[in-house]
């Protein structure tokens, strides 16, 4: 759990503070995405949490402890740190890279070796094949997998990730996002994730903090932000297609309507999003689709009118109460 209270940081010669009285609370086990245009203070905020930058005022509490009261080096050994360029040590093997923090903490060799193999498997890289290789032999995507494995090595409760997939091609990036989302959720870590890509934020975040010129503009779940942007800046930031983005967050079987007398000609899977359903409707020219379950059985219908109703709602709270919401 991370608590940021009244955090202030101004760099000498800057026109306005990089971080301007920021207050927010990140519940344990959640992914909080910091997002905003260049210079909004998202990276600065993240780097204050592990004291790579010292704050001017305010406090940051990690698991109840004020970070400025703890030795900075010890603090960092307990926080996972992933940066965009990864920063793998070129003169060390993959195994040695991953083992960095465990070695600093004095783990014994056997424990380290076992942990290295465990993490390589976790990030989808065959241990026997990769542990003795060197960073220069890896592709961009593979390097970042190792970067994440390295950050997870000592099993820190908190992870800081600064645009980790920014330097990777879009196809690999989408795959890495899915994989890491799965891994990080299963490990129940508290994660601070910095990005400038709103689609990545919506995909990865339990909560999104939108920053501008060092000020927190809105802090809420993706659905809430998409349904009710706090001001014109947020509205333009999330994009004019926010209605469609919202649809992408709702499953087809969350907007189920009862079957009528006539079975529709076309169907959509239950776990597909309403956005996919809309696309299928445009493709086929139908305004009604059957929603099919995993065995092909028909669960109900989605209609064009029903989808429209979902987007029309101005309810600022997360109106999708169903556990089926993505």
């Amino acid at each position, binding site marked *: 759990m991370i608590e940021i209270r009244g955090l202030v940081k101004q760099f000498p010669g800057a026109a306005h503070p990089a971080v301007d009285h920021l207050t927010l609370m990140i519940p344990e086990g959640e992914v909080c995405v910091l997002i905003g245009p260049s210079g909004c203070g998202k990276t600065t905020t993240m780097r204050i949490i592990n004291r790579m930058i010292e704050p001017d005022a305010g406090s940051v509490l990690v698991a109840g402890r004020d970070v400025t009261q703890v030795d900075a080096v010890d*603090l960092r050994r*307990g926080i996972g740190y992933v940066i965009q360029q*990864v*920063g793998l*040590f070129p003169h060390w093997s993959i195994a040695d890279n991953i083992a960095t923090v465990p070695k600093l903490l004095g783990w014994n060799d056997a424990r380290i070796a076992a942990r290295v193999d465990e993490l390589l498997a976790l990030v989808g890289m065959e241990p026997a094949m990769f542990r003795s290789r060197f960073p220069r032999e890896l592709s961009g995507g593979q390097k970042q997998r190792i970067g994440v494995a390295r950050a997870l090595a000592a099993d820190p409760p908190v992870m*800081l990730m600064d645009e980790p997939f920014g330097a990777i091609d879009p196809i690999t990036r989408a795959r890495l996002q899915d994989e890491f989302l799965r891994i990080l959720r299963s490990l129940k870590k508290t994660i601070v994730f910095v990005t400038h890509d709103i689609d990545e934020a919506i995909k990865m975040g339990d909560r999104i903090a939108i920053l501008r010129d060092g000020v927190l503009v809105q802090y809420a779940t993706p659905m809430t932000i998409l349904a009710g942007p706090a001001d014109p800046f947020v509205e333009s930031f999330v994009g004019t297609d926010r209605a469609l983005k919202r649809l992408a967050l709702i499953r087809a079987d969350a907007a189920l309507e009862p079957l009528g007398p006539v079975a529709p000609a076309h169907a959509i899977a239950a776990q597909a999003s309403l956005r996919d359903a809309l696309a299928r409707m445009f493709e086929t020219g139908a305004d009604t689709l059957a929603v099919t379950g995993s065995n092909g059985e028909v669960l109900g219908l989605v209609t064009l009118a029903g989808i429209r109703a979902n987007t029309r709602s101005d309810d600022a709270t997360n109106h999708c109460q169903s556990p089926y919401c993505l």
Partner: protein
Amino acid sequence: MLLVEAWQFVAAHPERFFGALYTHVALSAAALGLAIAIAFPVGVLLADKRRLALAAITAANIGRTLPSLAVLALVMPVLGTGFVPALFALTLLALPPILINTCTAMQQVDADIVDAARGMGMTRVQIVREVELPVALPVIFAGIRTAAVQVVSGAVLAAYIGGGGLGDFITSGIAMMALPQLLVGAIPATLLALGTDRVFGYLQKVLTPAGMRAR
């Protein structure tokens, strides 16, 4: 043939030859050792102090342009002749390449690697020892290699200020126009310099971390 006569000269005066050879090697090794002992730590310490580093590198660059014989000669009115003055001058000559290479190599270590190391909780000393130095080592050692060859070559000139070494044969050979003697100095000196370059080149390869060797 000249070479045969040169060989006969060595055979006739073995103590002189091996004495000179020994002095030459001792002078070179000592000068190199001293230069490393001074320039390497200074280079490492100055690496993150930008203005001091810049001043030091600028001074070293000027030092590098000075003609070797001029430096040796300048020492003479101050320190006299002999082994120690020669050692002093040769050490001065070896300092610039080592200092420049050490300082710039440390500065040029990829900033992202250093950031990652810091973010993971390495202390400053650990970062220098485990990350910056190993990564910078190939370039640092290239500077040492340059200095080594320069010292071995410069030691030939040490003969002029009474430092001994293989240069003695060359100078007396020229003075007396005794060509065999000249070769007794010139050929071993050349071989010594080439050999030093080879040996240090090999060491440089060996000391490059496995992960960073050219494929």
